[in-house]
């Protein structure tokens, strides 16, 4: 096992723990912080894979902007008491079994598969210029559609959160 592999497993383990923290934390601020942790670890994995640009973007946007925005949002909206436990406790064991079964199946699939048919791909560093060119030429369409998705999300947020005037 080389150094990269050790790093990979370390990042992955922390990412998984942080992700669990996001879901399980009672206090929503902790959950948000855990999320940021997951994002940082994923950036680390990108880094190992020689995708420096993606790693930077991941750090800047997800860990940085999104994470900070989320925490800001939490601070501005007064959440009050931590949420009480869910009412439908009887569903929990079923959900647990289902989730475990899925993890087993997915895990088995991941382990049993001969990924890339035995060919070990050579990792090469993709310069940002090439990435940009590919993104704006070949993948321009999904990129554009993604911008529409954001536009719709923005409009939607306004519609849903707009305070209505009293004469409505």
């Amino acid at each position, binding site marked *: 096992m080389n150094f990269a592999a050790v790093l990979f497993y370390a990042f992955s383990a922390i990412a998984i723990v942080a992700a669990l923290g996001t879901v399980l934390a009672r206090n929503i601020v902790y959950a948000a912080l855990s999320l940021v942790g997951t994002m940082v670890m994923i950036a680390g994995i990108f880094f190992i894979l020689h995708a420096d640009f993606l790693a930077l973007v991941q750090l800047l946007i997800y860990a940085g902007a999104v994470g900070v925005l989320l925490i800001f949002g939490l601070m501005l909206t007064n959440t009050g008491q931590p949420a009480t436990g869910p009412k439908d406790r009887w569903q929990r064991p079923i959900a647990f079994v289902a989730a475990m079964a899925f993890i087993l*199946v*997915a895990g*088995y*699939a*991941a382990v*049993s*598969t*001969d*990924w*890339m*048919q035995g060919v070990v791909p050579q990792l090469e560093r993709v310069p940002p210029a090439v990435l940009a060119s590919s993104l704006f*030429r*070949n*993948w*321009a*369409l*999904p990129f554009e*559609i*993604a911008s*529409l*998705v954001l*536009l*719709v*999300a923005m*409009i*939607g947020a*306004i*519609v*849903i959160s*707009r305070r*209505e005037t009293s004469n*409505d």
Partner: protein
Amino acid sequence: MNGSDFAFLLPEIVLVATAITVWAVDFFTPRDRKPDLAWPAAAGALVAMAFLAISWGEHREMFLGTLRLDNFSLFFRFLFLTVAFFVIVGSPGYVRRKLRNAGEFYGLILMSTVGAMGIVSSREFLTAYISLELVAFGFYVLVSHARHEARSNEAGAKYLILGAFSSGLLLFGISLIFGATGSTGYAAIAAALETTPDFGMVWTLGVALVLAGLGFKVAAFPFHSWAPDVYEGAPLPITAFLSVGSKAAGFAFLIRLFAEGLFPVLDDWRVAIGVVAVLTMTFGNLVAIQQANLKRLLAYSSIAQAGYILVGVATLNADTTSGMLLHIAGYTATNLGAFLVVIYFHNLTGKEGIDDLRGLYRRSFLLTLVLAVSLLSLAGMPLFAGFMTKFYLFTAAAASQLWWLIALAVANSILSVYYYLLVLRQAFITPESEEEEQRPAFRLPSHARATLSLLMVLVLWIGIYPSVFVDAAEAGSRALFGG
């Protein structure tokens, strides 16, 4: 790829431009005039249709084959534009009574339509996925648009959570398929399947997850549970839009994916999809029978209809694809007709129970007629679209010799007739009480009369002399299967 190719995306560009314009104009429109923004929005859809008509028959691959504008995509893009047009034109009365933020409402409908049009043209997972998200994001907002109604909020929350969950499943499935085959392009996946017929567990899991994700979108059993509540809670025009537009988009995704990407492994999935089809239609029909609310009844009936279309997916070939396209077209016209009747009825009475239809024939002959035509068509009566399209689909499916599937599908059609007739009985046969007989006749606005008549003619046209539609559907199917 060169600049002039963008001309072929003009319909989408027009829709986006219209949506943004409507949002902008909304700022300067006095509140009581806002519902009328429907007319510019609908006009945008018409202009887009005109641009689409110009490119009829042109095949074009763009962005390294990720996008393919062929007759298949033309068929569906035209369908989505038609749906958007009718949904928007049917909305103003409802919007005036029930909704605020009218401009955003119409613009979002157009945006979701753009997403649907993107799905059908994509030959690549990520483009299709992000287009699907565009559809879904629009719907999350549209479903909860009636903010002061608890039902609408509940529906919006449910749809958001389950929609995001199903998108997650889909995305995970896509990533597994990518992992196995090394590509997200349908053609490349098919090619990989030719060289390596078996990718093992990871492949099976990937396809299963993609199917589950799309199963949510088309509300197939057992991924249907969101549908009735969301259909019931959403504003009526959006329920109509969901039941035809969103569903057709999901099926278009499925059909292109299986025809161009997963066709080599279809045999492994035939029986599973067939079983899902049967469960979907049976469940939809059995629960529809028990409904007292017209909207919920149509919701369950549209679950059942998805089951019939899945029969075509299970037996996928060039002929059943034509059958599915035809059936989706007929179903779209029919369901729009049924929902428009419910919308106008709701606008006039504020009610949507089946019992409330009593005496409808006396109060509005047109509403009764369109309701009868739509429901009989959904039931699969000859002379109406539903029979002709189902007949075409099942005849084509017979070649697969999955007789159990076809027999159960036909048997389900009987079952469905029963509850459609219960509705018609209220509208046409059950007598009114003396008090009710004093209620005045309905006065429908003239645009409502025109839209209803148009849809009725469409249903009868497809039902009686469908040649034009059959030709279009077959052209669409040839785009995928050649020949």
